[in-house]
């Protein structure tokens, strides 16, 4: 009797507490789900804010103007002399012609500011391409200054007080007129992809930074990939199992976790001050990134080697292959896709790295496009850092655009790695 009572009461006890226990269970689950959501919500906000800010930077506002090539040009030896010719004056007169009612000096100066100072170079290029236009009148479209660009894209609040705007009432009036008449067009912003950095947002481009990044990645690849594979092969296949090998192992794992900025200090002290490699050059950047990527490549290459079943190795040894032949004929070819995948992931990390590059002077203002690995250059992430610091609204837009491009490259590289992994995945 008493036993039955006891068991009943246990069940009852459990029953009693059960609802509160289940409540806790549900709460716990919700807590987990909301934690996960934080990361994903951040991702959504982040991509939304970058994409919404950045996409407009891929277009640029242009004004169509009728320019007169009969004046202001000096032709010497059948060529236009770019020093004595006054290209500025050509554009100014075109603007004056378009808005003949503007006639006091102050207003005219404001009028001239509608057009980017880069328009001059466009004019020079145009005349280089079609020298037959000299003496005629042509309708050409010129990039506007960044303030006009921002206004047309709706990023400047017209209700603000004039003194708080970067664009004056007069300018607003002119632009509105041009928009109405269809003389303002949006075109693809090719300057973003073909120019180096500039103080003028509408002339600033990522090309020199992008090229610097690729030169660096090239060096990183040719240095760290072979060295990483060789080190992995040595450690997996040839290294005697002793204290030194253990030390190398621990060292590689720790090196992978050393802050990247410390690698920058190494680059500054060793590559620049000791070896005398030029500052800001892709060469020194590439070497620093190589050292940074090396542990990643070694670790993934070792994993690729251990994944190969030992029976293959035994088979080759059994027919009289030497250990080195086993490695060269069997292990390396079989592990190569895995090694390549690791290298691509390492490269994508190197592409996004910026802190060590600041240490070695790659943060400089670089207008020219680097052509060899010792030219001063910038890198795409560093360009983002520099632009993010600029106060102009137009640079904020371009920063986001540069981020979109950088993320695009990273995404492509990672998708490639995933594709390779899937394609060469082998079930033994």
């Amino acid at each position, binding site marked *: 009797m008493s036993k039955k009572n006891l068991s009943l009461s246990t069940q009852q006890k459990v029953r009693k507490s059960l609802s509160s226990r289940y409540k806790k269970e549900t709460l716990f689950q919700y807590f987990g789900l909301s934690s996960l959501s934080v990361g994903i919500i951040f991702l959504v906000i982040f991509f939304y804010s970058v994409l919404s800010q950045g996409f407009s930077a891929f277009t640029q506002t242009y004004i169509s103007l009728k320019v007169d090539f009969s004046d202001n040009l000096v032709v010497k030896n059948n060529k236009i002399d770019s020093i004595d010719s006054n290209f500025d004056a050509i554009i100014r007169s075109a603007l004056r012609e378009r808005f003949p009612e503007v006639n006091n000096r102050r207003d005219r100066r404001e009028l001239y500011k509608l057009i980017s100072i880069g328009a001059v170079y466009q004019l020079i290029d145009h005349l280089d391409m079609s020298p037959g236009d000299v003496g005629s009148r042509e309708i050409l479209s010129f990039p506007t200054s960044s303030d006009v660009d921002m206004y047309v894209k709706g990023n400047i609040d017209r209700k603000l007080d004039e003194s708080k705007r970067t664009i004056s009432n007069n300018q607003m009036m002119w632009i509105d007129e041009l928009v109405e008449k269809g003389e303002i067009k949006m075109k693809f912003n090719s300057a973003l992809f073909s120019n180096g950095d500039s103080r003028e947002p509408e002339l600033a481009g990522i090309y020199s930074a992008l090229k610097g990044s690729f030169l660096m990645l090239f060096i990183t690849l040719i240095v760290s990939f072979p060295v990483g594979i060789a080190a992995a092969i040595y450690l997996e296949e040839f290294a*005697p*199992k002793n204290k030194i090998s253990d030390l190398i192992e621990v060292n590689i794992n720790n090196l992978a976790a050393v802050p990247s900025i410390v690698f920058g200090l190494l680059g500054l002290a060793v590559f620049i001050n000791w070896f005398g490699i030029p500052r800001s050059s892709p060469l020194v950047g590439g070497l620093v990134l190589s050292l940074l990527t090396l542990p990643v490549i070694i670790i993934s290459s070792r994993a690729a080697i251990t994944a190969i*079943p030992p*029976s*293959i*190795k*035994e*088979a*080759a*040894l*059994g*027919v*009289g*292959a*030497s*250990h080195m*032949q086993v490695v060269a*004929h*069997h292990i390396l070819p*079989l592990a190569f896709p895995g090694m390549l995948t690791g290298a691509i992931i390492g490269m994508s990390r190197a592409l996004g790295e910026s802190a060590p590059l600041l240490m070695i002077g790659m943060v400089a203002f670089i207008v020219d496009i680097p052509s060899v690995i010792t030219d001063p250059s910038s890198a795409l992430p560093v360009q983002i850092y520099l632009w993010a610091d600029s106060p102009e609204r137009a640079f904020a837009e371009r920063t986001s655009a540069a981020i979109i491009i950088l993320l695009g490259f990273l995404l492509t590289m990672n998708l490639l790695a995933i594709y390779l992994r899937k394609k060469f995945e*082998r079930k033994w």
Partner: protein
Amino acid sequence: MTARDNIEDIETIGNPNVENPFISAKNVNVHYGDNHAIKDVSLQIAKNQVIALIGPSGCGKSTFIRCINRMNDTIDIAKITGKISLDGEDIYSKELDPVILRARVGMVFQKPNPFPKSIYDNVAYGPKIHGLAKDRNELDEIVANSLQKAGLYEEVSDRLDESGLSLSGGQQQRLCIARTIAVNPEVILMDEPCSALDPIATARIENLIDELSEKFSIVIVTHSMQQAARVSQRVAYFHLGRLVEVDDTEKVFTNPSHILTQDYITGRIG
């Protein structure tokens, strides 16, 4: 009963020596770290003969044949003492290159392990690295010959460029045998070559061993006493790292001398 308990004092009984020994092992000991895997084994093997090594699992028979082509070199902790000679030459001498030794002493493994390459490349691999063929024609000939000897040629002659992994288990193992004989070794070591195969595939391989014994010395490790009885001329029984008894196959299976051999053959030790 004392013979069963005092395993440490066992002296090999039977006939470990032969008249014209091709392989001769003397007082071989193998240590894997603290584990004494082979204890003082002496055994001679004649030319063109099949010798079967039998015994319960973990008795050291696989370890022993891996000494004959120095496959144990790949294991860092393995330590081998004693003397093994091949055709009068000490195989553990400093001058001897294990690569050359392994070309003379081929090996077939427990699980078929073809390279993930074409059938042709699997067989051609050995001749290629040893430079046995002057040109492509000669190589083709070696490959075809080896596949024929391994009894695989008819089945695969029209798909030599398919992957070796596309074959069935039994075919894979015959491919591995073809790969081994393509190098034209003097001895073939077989480490339980049929343990992963079905009975039909096993029967084919056993016939093959019979044919191969005309040209090669064969050392086969097997778990199956029937197989040992069918293919071998001599049998060596290993127990806990010791060579207990070695004699003509018929003698061992009909009239074993040692009590441990008796126990094993009658199924009391498994």
